[in-house]
């Protein structure tokens, strides 16, 4: 038995040392870099891009930063040091038996930024970096059950968010940086761009030929996208969303958006390994004004999207529903005993 244990630890340690990359600056783009083109003449933005570097960046800017959208060089240097310390800690697969552990997310749950996010918030407009207020009708909209609710309603699987149900995180929820699975694989063909996310694994097929949007009667989880090029920037306008289930927060959380939602995304490759991403959220039935979210995405050596079959292994749904039934049964038994 001891042999097996020792072997397991050795393998784990060796594998981790290989897999974990120390924080480092992006390589400088080659001088005179120009945006490459596809054989049919479109700007070539293909690759697997990740928003990992802004993992943990707040959506809304903390008030003490005011209108300051970026960290100072000193602040970035401090944040880089923290990433390096975090990396050193990550290299230790095990901890001493004296160390306390608990139910908070341990380090190996999440993936790591390779360099500090330069932004003080993901929302970049309005200037205070905060999402605009919700309209009264939006405040009244129920939010589906999901992660973060300590006492979820679980009468049915339908009470849960589409994310918890392995269905969809919506467009913004699929690209905003979260604790893991931030890969976006972009593949181009003549007249089309396809973007496939790792987590939940949806492929957005974006026509570029200028054809009109589908009828407003046709609505989908990820909406109906249309793309065009403005110089080297891919602009994607998406409408025809299903309403009331996904929000603009991480993983599609937060107040659900309405059927009036229109997203305008801009993908601009600014170097071989860096993409500038922006999305303007316009939902006149949810927010008091449109707002813009932006963050960089990068290509990293060896990074690829992995498989994400989710529904088959989603034991969490079974456990959540059976847990709620067990709770009801216990409450009924207690009530009967007190009669």
């Amino acid at each position, binding site marked *: *038995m*001891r042999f*097996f*244990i020792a*072997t*397991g*630890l050795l*393998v*784990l340690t060796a*594998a*981790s*040392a*290989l*897999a974990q990359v120390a924080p480092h600056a992006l390589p400088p783009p080659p001088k005179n870099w120009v945006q490459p083109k596809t054989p049919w003449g479109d700007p070539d933005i293909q690759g697997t891009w990740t928003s990992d570097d802004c993992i*943990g960046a*707040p959506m809304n800017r903390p008030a003490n930063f005011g209108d300051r959208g970026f960290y100072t060089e000193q602040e970035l240097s401090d944040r880089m040091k923290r990433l390096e310390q975090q990396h050193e800690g990550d290299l230790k*697969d*095990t*901890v*001493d*038996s004296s*160390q*306390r*552990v*608990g*139910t*908070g*997310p*341990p*380090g*190996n*749950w*999440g*993936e790591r930024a390779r360099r500090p996010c330069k932004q003080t918030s993901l929302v970049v407009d309005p200037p205070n970096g905060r999402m605009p207020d919700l309209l009264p009708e939006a405040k009244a909209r129920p939010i589906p059950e*999901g*992660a*973060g*609710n*300590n006492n*979820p309603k*679980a009468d049915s699987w339908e009470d849960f968010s589409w*994310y918890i149900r392995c269905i969809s995180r919506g467009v913004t929820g699929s690209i905003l940086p*979260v*604790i*893991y*699975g931030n890969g976006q694989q972009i593949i181009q063909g003549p007249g089309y761009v396809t973007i496939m996310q*790792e*987590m939940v694994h949806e492929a957005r097929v974006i026509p570029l030929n200028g054809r009109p949007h589908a009828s407003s009667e046709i609505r989908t989880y990820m909406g109906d996208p249309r793309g065009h090029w403005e110089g080297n920037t891919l602009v994607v306008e998406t409408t025809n969303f299903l309403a009331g289930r996904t929000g603009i927060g991480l993983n599609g959380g937060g107040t659900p958006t309405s059927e009036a939602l229109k997203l305008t995304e801009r993908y601009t490759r600014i170097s071989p390994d860096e993409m500038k991403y922006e999305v303007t959220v316009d939902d006149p039935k949810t927010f008091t004004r449109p707002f813009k979210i932006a963050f960089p995405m990068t290509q990293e050596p060896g990074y690829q999207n992995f498989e*994400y*079959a989710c529904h088959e*292994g989603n*034991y*969490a749904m079974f*456990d*959540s529903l*059976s*847990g*709620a*039934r*067990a709770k009801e049964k216990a409450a009924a038994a207690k009530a009967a005993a007190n009669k």
Partner: protein
Amino acid sequence: MKKALLTLGAAGLMLMAAVPARAHHAFAAEFDSDKPIKFKGTVTKMEWINPHAWIHIDVKADDGTVTNWMIEAAAPNSLLRRGWNKSSLPAGTEILVEGYQAKDGSNRANGSVITFADGKKLFVGNAAGDPGAAPGAPKQP
């Protein structure tokens, strides 16, 4: 089996992570913070499935009966990127598992920590990816 279950002073041992994170699902929906578990078992297999990996272990009670438990771990893609592979927890490895049992009383638990025979602890993750979802933690806005 009862003898194999040891109750921890759960609330006092919790260490909340400061990183705001959101995992696939809520701890409190699935697991019972009043049912902490701590027992030794032998790994029979690890399911590398999305959205979360599960470790299967055989737990031997004092009377010799063996019960299979499933211990929830982190997202497989994340474990893979962080250096785990199929050899990380080979079948036959003896481990001490700490976590919380499923609310419905079945032999499923989240995994907070695994301790190897030499006393080293291995974080395996748990269902409380969102600090707000962890028992006793303040609810996130």
